[in-house]
C-alpha cells in the first residue's frame, strides 16, 4: 500500500466488461520527502475520493476481485482517504 494524491478523473467508454460502472481516478504516488512519483497511476475508487485528496492505494487485486469477479484486471484500489499522516517534517492530509 502507498500514499497517493488524487489529481483528476478518467473517462473511458471502452473497457474490460468487469470494469463497467467503476470510478477511475488519476493518482500520483507520494514519497516520504513530500515529492510525487513521475508517472500517474489509474486507481479504482469506491470511497468517493476527489481531486486533492490524499489516499491509501492497495496494489492487491483481492478487493477488486471480490467486487468485480475473478476475471477483472483491476488491481490498484483506493482503500482509505487520509485524514492526517506525518513522515518526518512532511505532513499530508486531505485538507492540505
Amino acid at each position, binding site marked *: 500500500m502507498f500514499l497517493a494524491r488524487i*489529481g*483528476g*478523473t*478518467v*473517462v*473511458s*467508454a*471502452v*473497457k*474490460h466488461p468487469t*470494469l463497467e460502472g467503476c470510478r*477511475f481516478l*488519476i493518482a*500520483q504516488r507520494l514519497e516520504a520527502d513530500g515529492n*510525487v*512519483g*513521475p*508517472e*500517474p*497511476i*489509474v*486507481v479504482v475508487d469506491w470511497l468517493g475520493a476527489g481531486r486533492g485528496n490524499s489516499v491509501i492505494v492497495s*496494489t492487491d*487485486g483481492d478487493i*477488486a*476481485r471480490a467486487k468485480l469477479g*475473478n*476475471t*477483472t*484486471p*483491476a*488491481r*490498484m484500489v483506493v482503500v482509505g482517504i487520509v485524514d492526517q499522516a506525518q513522515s518526518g517534517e512532511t505532513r499530508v492530509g486531505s485538507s492540505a
Partner: protein
Amino acid sequence: MRLGIVRGRVVLNPAVASFSGRTFVVLEPVTMENLIAGNGLGGGKSLVAVDELGAADGQMVAFTEGREAANPFWPDSVPVDAYCSLIVDSINIHAKAVSSGSEVGK
C-alpha cells in the same frame, strides 16, 4: 494501472500455446509531465501488453501489471503480466481535460 500510448503491435511465431490468437501491443508509458502538457508523448520505458479492446496506434490506454494482468484469462494459466484494461477517452486533471490519442493537446 499506468497510462500508456499504443505505439505498435507485435506478431509472434512461434509462441507459447496460450498466446495463440492474442493481440500484443507495444505501449509507451506516460509521465505526469507529458500528461499535463498534453503533448501526445509518453516518456516511460516501453513494454508489451495484451490488448483485447482494439486500441489503435496513438490511443491512450490504462494497463494493469502484475499477476492481476492474467485475471481476464482465469481459470486458464497464461503467462501475461501486462493487460490493456481500458481505453482512455479523456482525463480531467488540473481543471483541464486531456484527450486521448492524436488529439492530445489540441
